[in-house]
């Protein structure tokens, strides 16, 4: 019988769970968001479908435990996350869509390169070229994530098999792509935690983090790759280093009705 609670210990040198209000000069939430945690589980095992019709399940994050980076290190009077300031030159434009690239490849449109090191005098506009942006990233993060698999209607009887497959993959360190902490350049390393295993205690941290991003997509139904954003929030409170994450369907998660799902 596979356990329902799938626990992963994840860690990494850097992380940036960008606050939406401070996403230009990026500033990270002090703790991983449920959507970033869901992304880590998805990176290890997911069964999506381009059109959402055959998507098999979604992950529901239930809790996040904040662990000390160095268990030998003596905590300060109260824990506070460690930040690091990074500055990088970045482009102001977005990469082209698949459709645009296809048009370029077929010769129907002239390719428009992104000039990574140009300024207004060269491009004639201030909206292109490069700009220097700051990232206030978290340093030395370690979490114990708890999640449950939620099969979509029609796949309920496969839950045991799906959970077993996840545990096999996570136990062998397999992943579809490298999990990451908020940004792809900050890799997350993971280890499956077996039931009953003794682990490090969470840090001593109590706090009200205010309204935190829960997820960008509607998790109530399978979606497609082109589902629009439906941002949901929840009141994040840490107690003894543990963030309890409410179920997406609960009233504690503030949503906008009428969205489309995410497979």
């Amino acid at each position: 019988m596979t356990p329902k609670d799938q626990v992963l210990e994840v860690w990494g040198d850097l992380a940036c769970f960008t606050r939406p209000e401070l996403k230009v000069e990026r500033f990270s939430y002090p703790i991983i968001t449920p959507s970033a945690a869901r992304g880590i589980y998805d990176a290890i095992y997911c069964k999506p479908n381009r059109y959402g019709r055959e998507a098999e399940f979604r992950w529901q994050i239930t809790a996040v435990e904040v662990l000390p980076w160095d268990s030998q290190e003596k905590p300060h009077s109260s824990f506070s996350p460690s930040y690091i300031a990074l500055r990088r030159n970045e482009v102001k434009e977005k990469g082209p869509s698949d459709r645009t690239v296809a048009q370029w490849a077929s010769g129907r449109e002239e390719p428009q390169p992104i000039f990574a090191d140009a300024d207004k005098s060269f491009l004639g506009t201030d909206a292109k070229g490069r700009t220097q942006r700051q990232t206030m990233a978290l340093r030395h993060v370690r979490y114990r994530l708890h999640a449950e698999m939620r099969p979509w209607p029609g796949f309920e009887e496969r839950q045991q098999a799906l959970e077993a497959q996840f545990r096999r993959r996570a136990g062998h360190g397999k992943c579809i792509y490298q999990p990451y902490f908020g940004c792809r350049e900050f890799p997350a390393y993971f280890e499956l935690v077996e039931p009953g295993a003794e682990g490090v205690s969470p840090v001593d941290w109590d706090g009200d983090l205010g309204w935190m991003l829960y997820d960008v997509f509607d998790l109530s139904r399978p979606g497609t790759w082109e589902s629009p954003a439906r941002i949901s929030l929840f009141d994040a409170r840490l107690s003894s280093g543990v963030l309890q994450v409410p179920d997406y369907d609960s009233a504690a998660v503030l949503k906008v009705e009428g969205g489309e799902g995410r497979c």
Partner: protein
Amino acid sequence: MLKQLVEYAKDHLPGSEPGFTTKTVKWAIVFASSGDGLSVVELGDTTAKRNPGREFTRCPEMGFSQMKAGGVTKSHFLIDTTEVVALLGDKAQDPKNLAKHAYFLYLLRQASAVLPELENVADYLDDPASLQQVQERLAEQKAKPNEKVTFRIGGAFPVESTAWYDWWRSFRKTLSGGSANGAKRRSAGDSSMRSFVSGELTSPAPTHPKITGLADVGGSSMGSPLIGFDKDAFTSYGLSQSANCAVSVEDATAYRDALNDLLAKHSERLAGAKVAYWFAKPVADEDNPVQMLTNPAENGEDSPAAKRQAQQQRREEANAQHRAHELLTAIRDGERPDLADNRYNALTLSGAAGRVMVRDWMEGSFAELVENIAAWFDDLAIVHRAGGNALAPCPKFLAVLSATVRELDDLAAPMVSRVWRSALHCEPIPRSAHAQALARVRLDILNDAVPNHARMGLLRAYHLRAHRSKGDDVMAQALKPYLNEEHPSLAYHCGRLMAVYAALQHAALGDVGAGVVQRYYAAASATPALVLGRLARSSQFHLNKLEGGLTYWYESALSQIWSRLGDGAPRTLDLEEQSLFALGYYQQLADLRTKKTDDKAADTTTNPKGDD
């Protein structure tokens, strides 16, 4: 963060509302109640060397989206630049400026429905002859085209009247088709989103108002938005502009007003960053722990030795460390229930290319803040360089920062925010700050400069906090403000030896120019085994030159320290050991001065060279 700022605005800024803001105005065109223009007067403190003008707290404001709406060139209402209002300056006759001037008069005429006297003002400014008079009077007083101007009619400022408020509210709505943010919201494709401030369903403001007060830390003098998404790469998921972070127009105005107020009244500039801080409940200045940190009591560092004792007494009564401990005790003993359940918020900001950069955000209980600041001063405490049993005065926070660099301009803003966090959260001192301070200490010593208390204190605080975080209380307790002859570190005793050899050379030969410190300190602090042996040999020549009693004293002092080294001095010292070497050197130096002073007071014959 946004939530706390909006709460601050609700508690402290009752006038915060979209369409209204605080403006500083330099000039006023004075009219009689009949509408005739009389003169131009300068507002504010006219005797000040740099007079920014007079502050009006509730002025009409037109946001960026309103200014751009409809493709019509617009100007502000009641207050604008002299270039727009009076067509002053070389560029006044540009078509765009003339259009702004015309719109300014249009607004005055529209508002005359509720403030009839504005009709006369508009007529007056519309008349070329009277406008020329205004221009001449402004020019006489050396007004500049970019300075703001308003009106005073019959002794009262229309901008201070409440009569135009309702008209202005309804007029603003007409600028964007019935909703302050309707046009952009439609383009965003979202009729309603969850607010990141309140969690309620809201129509997101398309653009956010600008934060002022960061011009001296890299921001634009015109203000910069805290939340802004004006480039493609700044947006995600197909969301347009500030729909990427839904905040209502009201909340956007509230957090802007709160931040502007905090930056103007409750902030500290720390090199390349500004810290705005506030408390959930009001705190008196004398109880404000942040002020203790940034502006501790008088120092009197360079006082003559004879007055030191009396000054120390006064310092004890007033210094920040003492006050912080006193406040902490009062909170713990329940004598200050008003502060016990208070909380603090601190936001570190700087400007970057027209945007606001948040460098840190901290919040916590007031008692914890006081405790951490008391711990900061305790950890920085170091013996006074002049010796005696006096501690150096508590350094200002800026002095601690400047201890890491040659000039304050060399300070990087990330370093500022990291050291600030160390102080407020009782966190370890950053390694980079330690390395930089050590380099400056070495230069001070080699250049025979006066040792800097903040630098030495920072080195001590670094070791204390690093050891505590590793759970090594023995090492943390061993590093006292004064000399500790029992210290377990060999590097510390090597530093002590260096100080005694230097004192011995001075006692034997007097001032020799480049002494053992200038010649050997750098090498001894990195490779003591190589250098201290040579110094031990040359010290024999110095000892031979001294009189009997003094020779005996130095010999016993040296042998006592050498005995601490056991098998000998270490071959090499890493960076952390080098700073222990520096601390040992400094504390031994201060101790030698203490002993000389005491000896001199007791019996001058035993220490004939006992000057500082």
